[in-house]
Every structure is written in structure tokens, then in C-alpha cells.
């Protein structure tokens, strides 16, 4: 099904908002009803198009937050000077209709057959496609070991906090670092991800790990360079860069 999805001709279609879930003060998950959805892979994205009354259009690409087989969902973080995200996070209501094109992308994708151990590194809202991978791993009963390194400004900005707690209870190693403000009594990492932190957290290269890094460009560059320095082959480090969203 998924492979067929990659081959079919992409067109814009109308998607209806089924539900919105507030994740943090700045991020919300939007669950969509898409009549002709061919299925997606964990890590793929979709494009959203908004059309103003005067015909002006804006398009943005968002990672799919849900696992294959689940209803299509995206999680959007509001950028205060953004053109699209303030509308999606503050104005959009269930029943509203969006232009949608997808799923797209085949590079930043994980399937159970790809194995592990998995090192998933998220900067801010870069958690979204990695969450889809973790949900897929859970739902498919995949046995690959998984370790999540999640850099956020503060605890209040941790997206999917409750779900990550549950994943941690179910055997996913979740390692958080806070770059601006740590919770009271926090004994974990409280700094930006750097080569030294990666050396402590990453699976040894000898275990043939597979790494996915998603976040702001500078975060992704740091992780990719750091993992290469630890001996990860380039083909085992997959990267996806967001815009300068200030997520660090």
C-alpha cells in the first residue's frame, strides 16, 4: 500500500479538520479526515495550502504526526511572525477545510524492516516525525531498541509529554535536555546538544545503529557532525531540517 502511495500522481485535495488537540501553549495537533488517503510511512510529510479570499495562497510542508494506519494528523508549532502557523494553531476549528497534498518524502522514513537500534534526535518540534516512528514501532510490535534524545527550551515546550512518559515506561529510552530553563530538581541534561553529549547518549557505532535527526538546521548539523565523529557512517544518519523556528 505504502509503496503504491509513492507512485501515485500527487494532487491537491480537500481535507476536513476532525479534531484539534492542544499539545503546548504554542503547538497543537490537527487530526484530518482525508477522503482519498493512500496511507503513509512513518516520517513522511504532507503539504498544506491555505487560500485567502483574495486568492493569495500559502503552502507549507508539515511532518505527519500519526503512525501508518492511524488517522492523518499533523502537529504545528506557532511562529509568531509566521504566515500560516498562527492561523493553524489559533483560528482553525473542527469542520474547517484545508488544501492538502501528500504523503510526500521517502528519505526520512523508518519502517520496522529497517531495524535498529534507533537513535532519534529531536530539536523542538522536530519531535513530530520521530513521534510517528515511535508510534509505528509500538503499534507494529517492532523489536528494534529505541532511544530518543529530545532537546527543548523548557519543560512547558515538550510536545507529547504524557505520551513520551508512557513510551519510556514501555522500554523506549527517553533522554531530555533543556536549553533555557530546567524544571526544579532536574538532574538531567540542561544544555544544547553537542558532541560531548552525543558521545554519552548515542549507541556505540559498533552496534550498527540507525539515526534520525530532525529539528532546526543548526541542531541537525550538530547532531549529524557529532554522530559522524563517533563513527556513524553517513548512510546511517538521516536528517531533516526545519526552518529557523527558534526551537532550541
Amino acid at each position, binding site marked *: 500500500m505504502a509503496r503504491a502511495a*509513492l*507512485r501515485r*500522481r*500527487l*494532487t491537491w485535495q480537500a481535507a476536513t479538520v476532525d479534531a484539534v488537540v492542544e499539545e503546548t501553549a504554542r503547538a497543537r495537533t490537527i487530526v484530518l479526515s482525508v477522503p482519498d488517503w493512500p496511507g503513509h510511512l512513518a516520517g513522511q*510529510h*504532507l*503539504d498544506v495550502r491555505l487560500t485567502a479570499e483574495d486568492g493569495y495562497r500559502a*503552502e507549507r*510542508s508539515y511532518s505527519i504526526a500519526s503512525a501508518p494506519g492511524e488517522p492523518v494528523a499533523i502537529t504545528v508549532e506557532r511562529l509568531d511572525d509566521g504566515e500560516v502557523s498562527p492561523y493553524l494553531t489559533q483560528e482553525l476549528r473542527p469542520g474547517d477545510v484545508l488544501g492538502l*497534498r*501528500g504523503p*510526500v*518524502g*521517502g*528519505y*526520512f522514513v523508518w519502517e520496522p524492516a529497517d531495524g535498529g537500534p534507533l537513535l532519534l534526535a529531536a530539536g523542538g518540534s522536530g519531535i513530530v516525525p520521530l513521534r510517528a516512528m515511535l508510534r509505528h514501532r509500538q503499534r507494529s510490535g517492532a523489536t528494534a531498541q529505541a532511544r530518543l534524545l529530545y532537546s527543548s527550551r523548557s519543560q512547558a515546550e515538550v510536545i507529547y509529554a504524557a505520551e513520551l512518559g508512557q513510551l519510556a515506561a514501555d522500554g523506549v529510552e527517553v533522554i531530555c535536555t533543556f536549553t533555557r530553563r530546567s524544571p526544579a530538581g532536574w538532574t538531567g541534561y540542561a544544555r544544547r546538544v553537542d558532541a560531548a553529549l552525543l558521545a554519552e547518549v548515542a549507541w556505540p557505532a559498533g552496534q550498527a545503529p540507525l539515526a534520525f535527526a530532525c529539528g*532546526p*538546521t*543548526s541542531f541537525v548539523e550538530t547532531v549529524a557532525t557529532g554522530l559522524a565523529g563517533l563513527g556513524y557512517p553517513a548512510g546511517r544518519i*538521516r*536528517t*531533516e*531540517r*526545519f*526552518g*529557523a523556528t527558534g526551537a532550541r
Partner: protein
Amino acid sequence: MDALDGNAIAGPLAEVFGTEMTTATGICISCGRSSQVAGFAVYLQGPGIVARCGGCAAVLMVLVEIRGMTCVDLRGLSSLG
């Protein structure tokens, strides 16, 4: 100005080429570097889409939409597939 990467233009490329392109490999005419499209440095801030080589920063690909038609210039690629 931060560059994104080729993942960000998976949609426009799929529409133009009719297939998933981020896992396709392109070779830079300027420096000979071979890279998956996902690894191109992509700039969306201008009037069109510009993809540059991650090695030498030469322009590989330009996509511009004009009156509903997408014009694709692959001037910087010696191959793409």
C-alpha cells in the same frame, strides 16, 4: 539565512516529476559531488525554490511557478535519477 534540505520540497518535486524524488541522486556539475536530493541545501525564501550543492554551494535546481505552470531549471546537475 538558514538552508532547509531537500525533504522540504518533496511535494513540489513529486508534483513536477510524478514520483518521489528525495531519494533520487543528483550529481553537481560544479564539484562532482553525488548526493540524494534530500541532502541538497534548499532555500524557500525567494520568489522560487533554489536548491544548492551541499558541498560547493553551486545552484543545482531552480523551480518557479508562473501563472500556474512550474518551470524547472536543472542547470547545475549533470545527472538526476
